[in-house]
């Protein structure tokens, strides 16, 4: 992986984010009505001074291109405006909420990849066995179940019948001041159901993909060689075949990230998880546009960063690509 490749990818990611900022800007202007009123949101009629100060801050009396420039340069300084509903700068509002979302999304991603790959790899050893059938049934079901509904079903199950996991929020109120280890355990405990809900959909997809990709890999010549030289079957499957079968998984995992964030939005709302999705929901109900646009910006940023990481790790995982520019 050479430096010019990394720099080119970084510049490209930056341009994508610039696109998101321009899109945000256009969306506010395309909305019917006075942009200042739109930005002020549903506050039961903003006062004239307030609208005037918004017009001042966003330069709404200036030509459109100047407005765009003002908007871009303030976003570049992570100034995403003021939320009139929460009465806080949007950047700090999101700063508080972004970590729970990252925690939820990454946990769900890891859970679905690890379990899915394991299931798919085992299923591929018997392409017509019961586990293979289960994988294809599960992936069809996983595709068809609305994620918010799965969450609600799990809440019904775990709130009334099996009270093993908390069904709401991220932390227990009474443990807010406990030592960090107790708090970590508490958060992990709260994380189980939301992360699992989100992981279920993708788990089956990864299992199905791994199974197909493993079937390809297992029929390759080098596997026959490995078997012929008498290697343990487990080593053949898990260290020779799986290594090569993982490349397509990596690609899909990168592409799924955006969908995962969309799913997190719903899951957070169901489980009252204090992340960006919940924030998006609250701010949309209040028509708090600066916050909504801020969430859109940061959520896109997460996808861009995830894509960059996928890109780089792909090159790391596939030595054939290392020297390509």
């Amino acid at each position: 992986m050479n430096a010019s490749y990394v720099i080119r990818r970084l510049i490209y990611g930056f341009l994508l984010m610039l696109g998101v900022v321009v899109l945000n800007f256009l969306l506010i202007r395309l909305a019917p009505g006075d942009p200042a009123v739109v930005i002020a949101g549903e506050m039961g009629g903003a006062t004239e001074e307030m609208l005037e100060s918004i017009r001042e801050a966003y330069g709404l009396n200036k030509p459109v291109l100047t407005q765009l420039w003002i908007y871009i340069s303030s976003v570049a300084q992570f100034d995403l405006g003021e939320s009139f509903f929460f009465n806080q700068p949007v950047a700090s509002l999101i700063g508080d909420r972004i970590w729970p979302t990252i925690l939820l999304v990454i946990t769900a991603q890891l859970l679905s990849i690890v379990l899915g790959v394991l299931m798919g790899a085992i299923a591929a050893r018997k392409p017509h066995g019961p586990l293979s059938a289960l994988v294809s049934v599960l992936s069809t079901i996983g595709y068809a179940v609305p994620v918010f509904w799965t969450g609600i079903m799990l809440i019904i199950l775990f709130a009334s019948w099996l009270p093993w996991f908390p069904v709401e929020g991220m932390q227990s109120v009474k443990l807010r001041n406990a030592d960090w280890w107790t708090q970590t355990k508490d958060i992990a405990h709260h994380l189980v159901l939301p992360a699992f809900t989100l992981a279920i959909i993708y788990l089956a997809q990864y299992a199905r993909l791994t199974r197909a990709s493993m079937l390809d890999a297992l029929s390759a010549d080098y596997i026959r060689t490995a078997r012929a030289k008498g290697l343990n079957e487990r080593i053949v499957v898990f260290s020779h075949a799986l290594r090569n079968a993982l490349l397509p998984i990596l690609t899909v995992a990168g592409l799924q990230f955006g969908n995962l964030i969309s799913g997190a939005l719903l899951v957070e709302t169901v489980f009252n998880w204090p992340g960006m999705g919940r924030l998006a929901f609250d701010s949309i109900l209040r028509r708090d546009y600066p916050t909504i646009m801020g969430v859109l910006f940061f959520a896109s940023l997460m996808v861009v960063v995830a894509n960059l990481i996928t890109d780089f790790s792909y090159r790391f995982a596939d030595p054939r690509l290392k020297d390509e520019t």
Partner: protein
Amino acid sequence: MTDLADPIKENVSRSPMREAWHMFRKNIPAMFGLILMIAILGMTLYGTLLFQGDPYEIVWAPHEPPGMTPEFPLGTDYLGRDIVAGLLSGGGPTLTVGASAAAITMVIGLLLGATAGYFGGWVDNLLMRVTEFFQVLPALLFAMVLVTLFTPSLFVIALAIGVVSWPQTARLTRAEFLKIKELEYITAARASGTPTWRIMWRFILPNAAPPLIVSATLTVGVAILFEAGLSFLGLGDPNVMSWGLMIGANREYILDAWWPVTIPGLMIFLTVFSVSLIGDGLNDAFNPRLRQR
């Protein structure tokens, strides 16, 4: 001997679409999906005619469990509204939005993908950058923003879903066009002076159709889930009952009553499930050799 002769004759005489239908008909899960879909369509189309009830009308005590009162076989919700009435009239909007959003997705995806794949060069480059840009935006969030900025009518919702879901279709179309345009019969068509649009529309598209039909089917499923998610969040058209809205409205009370949330969710699941079975069946029918997978 007839056993041997038949398959050969079938393969020679049938058109590809009839051949696919023949394969599809023998596929049990796919036929099950088709029948399920027809049943759901029939229920939502004719159910409202046979069973006249306003889904918003309060008809009974709240939270009547299913099976307790013969007039309300599936019980009532938190306000005492009939669940059956909700299911019947909520299906229409859900399916309409799903189907029209999928249609919009396909139109945008086909146009952009075909243009990019056929012309290549800077056109391809530009359109693919646009596609990547739309893939960066978290789809549901972007759709939420669009629906909030403009009035949430069924049309705006379908449009918002279409605008966020086309990139995959565009990529698929592009890949197919890239592959097919290199074939000799296209060169021949070009050499004989066939207009470009005619080559794209009449010569390439029909041959690219099988994967696109499968993808269109699956897009309907995704669009239905999308619509359900938006209505669940309360961002649907507030004047129209839908399955997602029923779940969203009743979710505060799930610990008192499971049925007002569980039943509409099952309907969404069954609908998307049937679409997915049909899609898988079409895929198998168009690519019989891949079936072993």
